[in-house]
């Protein structure tokens, strides 16, 4: 009997210690942050951070959840996050943050590494958060909704980024942990670029606009969505997209090829002190739009279109690589990493002077286009 009583006492004691009651947070005490935009104010020497927060007050059974904007300032990122509590009833909770938008100025001046450090170090932010760069003056502009637009900007952007490579292939989405790895391994990075586009007369909407190229962790330049498509080819991550070309080498494109599958093989050869990097792409496409009067049932026409497509693809891929090599001079494709992984001895020789060697590398591109069918009609 006494034993049972003592066991109950012990159990009660354990229950008191259990459940993390020091750390218990009810859902109504959380301000769920869906997206973050980070700006840095040089004059005031502080971070201006914009949080898009789920508006729990307006949530009802039948209404969709809306979001509202919370702005905060602080000397560091954690400082700003805590300062928000000075005007918010609930503490900010970062466990569901979908997207992080950095401002162009941060990428140009202080570099993104210090900012990323906090998001990786803090326990609440998840490492699978998407990171993007704003092409507007501030990152805050991206998260602002204008006019009567509904929907949560962060979640929209997250969905757009996640499905981009399977639909439109206009940007390279990057998760936080991938960004950290790439910065350490290649000393360069690629971030999706977002700008504001005119939707209606008075409304602006956040739109993906290619990618930003970073050398080290500083911004170097941007690529257009068209160029980014070819970058996705080279990185072997494109899942779908459109190739437009002209079958008879005319100015206006009159054929649309829908990409269904692509495999890119990357390799390098080292002969007589020269390194040649080889890309071989193999793409399955479908003719989805035909403005020309050509007959799709004619095998000669198909061959002609394939050949024209291959030439166009090869030219664009070569142009892109040349631009990255000579204009940007950043190793975003990881040529150095490839040599490091495949041929350690060679890499040890090249590593000290890799910065000078990189622009001189020869690149060879071979594309193969296979037209699967011409959709529903001949």
């Amino acid at each position, binding site marked *: 009997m006494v034993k049972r009583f003592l066991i109950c006492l*012990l159990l009660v004691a*354990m229950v008191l*210690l*259990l459940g*993390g009651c*020091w*750390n218990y947070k009810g859902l109504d005490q959380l301000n769920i942050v869906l997206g973050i935009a980070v700006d840095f104010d040089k004059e005031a020497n502080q971070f201006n951070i914009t949080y898009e927060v789920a508006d729990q007050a307006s949530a009802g059974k039948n209404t969709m959840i809306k979001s509202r904007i919370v702005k905060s300032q602080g000397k560091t990122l954690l400082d700003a996050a805590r300062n928000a509590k000075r005007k918010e009833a609930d503490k900010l909770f970062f466990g569901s943050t979908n997207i992080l938008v950095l401002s162009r100025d941060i990428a140009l001046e202080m570099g993104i590494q210090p900012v990323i450090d906090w998001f*990786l170090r803090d*326990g609440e932010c*998840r*490492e*699978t958060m998407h990171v993007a760069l704003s092409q507007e003056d501030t990152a805050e502009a991206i998260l602002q909704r204008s006019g009567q637009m509904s929907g949560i900007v962060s979640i929209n952007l997250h969905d757009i980024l996640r499905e981009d490579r399977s639909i439109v292939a206009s940007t390279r989405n990057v*998760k936080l*942990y*991938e960004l*950290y*790895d790439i*910065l*350490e*391994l290649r000393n360069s990075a690629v971030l999706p670029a977002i700008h504001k586009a005119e939707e209606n007369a008075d409304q602006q909407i956040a739109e993906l606009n290619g990618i930003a190229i970073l050398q080290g962790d500083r911004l170097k330049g941007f690529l257009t969505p068209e160029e980014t498509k070819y970058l996705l080819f080279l990185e072997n991550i494109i899942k779908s997209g459109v190739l437009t070309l002209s079958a008879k080498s005319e100015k206006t494109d009159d054929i649309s090829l829908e990409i269904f599958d692509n495999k890119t093989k990357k390799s390098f050869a080292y002969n007589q002190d020269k390194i040649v990097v080889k890309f071989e792409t193999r793409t399955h496409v479908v003719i989805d739009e035909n403005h020309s009067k050509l007959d799709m049932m004619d095998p000669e026409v198909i061959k002609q279109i394939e050949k024209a497509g291959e030439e166009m693809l090869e030219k664009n891929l070569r142009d892109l690589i040349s631009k990255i090599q000579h204009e940007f001079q950043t190793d975003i494709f990881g040529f150095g990493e490839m040599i*490091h*992984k*495949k*041929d*350690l001895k060679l*890499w040890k020789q090249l590593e000290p002077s890799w910065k000078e060697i990189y622009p001189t590398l020869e690149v060879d591109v071979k594309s193969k286009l296979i037209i699967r069918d011409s959709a529903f009609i001949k």
Partner: protein
Amino acid sequence: MATEKITFHQSAYSIVLFCFGSSVIIGISSSANQDGWISIILATICIIPVFLMHARIIKLFPEKNYFEIIETVLGKKIGKIITALMLWYSVHLAALVLCNFGEFIQVFDMPETPKLSITILMILTTVYLARSGMRSIGKWSVVGICFLLFVVLFTFATSVHQMHFENLLPVMEASPSQILKSSFEIFTFPYGESVIFLCVADSFHKKDNPYRVFFLALAIVLPVFLTVFIRNLALLGLPMINASYFPSYIAVRIIEIGDFFARIESSISSNFILAGIVKIAICLLAASKGIVSLFGLQNNRVFIMPVGMLALALSSILYTSTMEMFIFLDYYMYYALPFQIIIPLGVWIVAEFKRRKKGQMINTPEDASL
């Protein structure tokens, strides 16, 4: 009092869970960077002679625990000193695992909860497990190993589409000395700690071949370590692994399938708990047997609780921060060497020597002194 016996499979599985104790969560040593898998295989090869030695000691003294063997072989005076040393090592090891667990829960789950309340709950549970006897630990190991293997395989299978196996290249980038140092670290933590099993070896059946027990355990541990290492490296990439305190946890955090399947990292925490309590319980059992042997007492079960409280007290003063805990891991391999290798080696050599002299099995202190 009569010691409980566990079956062949139960003993092997408890050794497996003992080895997994802290390693599945801390991740397996990475000073060799992406060549860690070579270190793991090398450490496994190096532990084989040590396991042979442990099994031989058990075979020479069937159904006796380590402290009785020490007294039998080395005599009373030296025996008591060595017993005290092994007793200290068991308590220290229990405190180390408690610290690992406390730090892990505090850093990752509940930063505001004081470590003491977490470790109190942990130690009370393990004291209960240890008090229920070796048989309960054996049965628990059978269940625990199924769950543990399931979680490891499941997390591997659901993350294959996110893996980049080229993170394992280039092979042999680390210098041989780095690989050797890394394998030495793995050798002492966690393989070498199985010397504690000698302390509870009186629970092995006489008819069970101890060689087969240890090798079955090794045959399960090696593939799981390799799987965990490859999964972590292929998912996270080298820079993230080097930056993380607990790579396994971070690796499983990023697993996502489609829109609906994510955030399964709590399975890794539960793995840690399942294996961790076995490790601490066996250390506590070993320590209580040590006390019985040291002071010439009889009932070892009553001492499990004070030893547990001692481990709790020790764990609260050992480190003041997570960084200190990881710095100590660098020195642990030198500190553990006497306990894991030198003492068993001495015991084994003297036992063999005395056996040759006598020409038969030694069973009691009287036999040894003849």
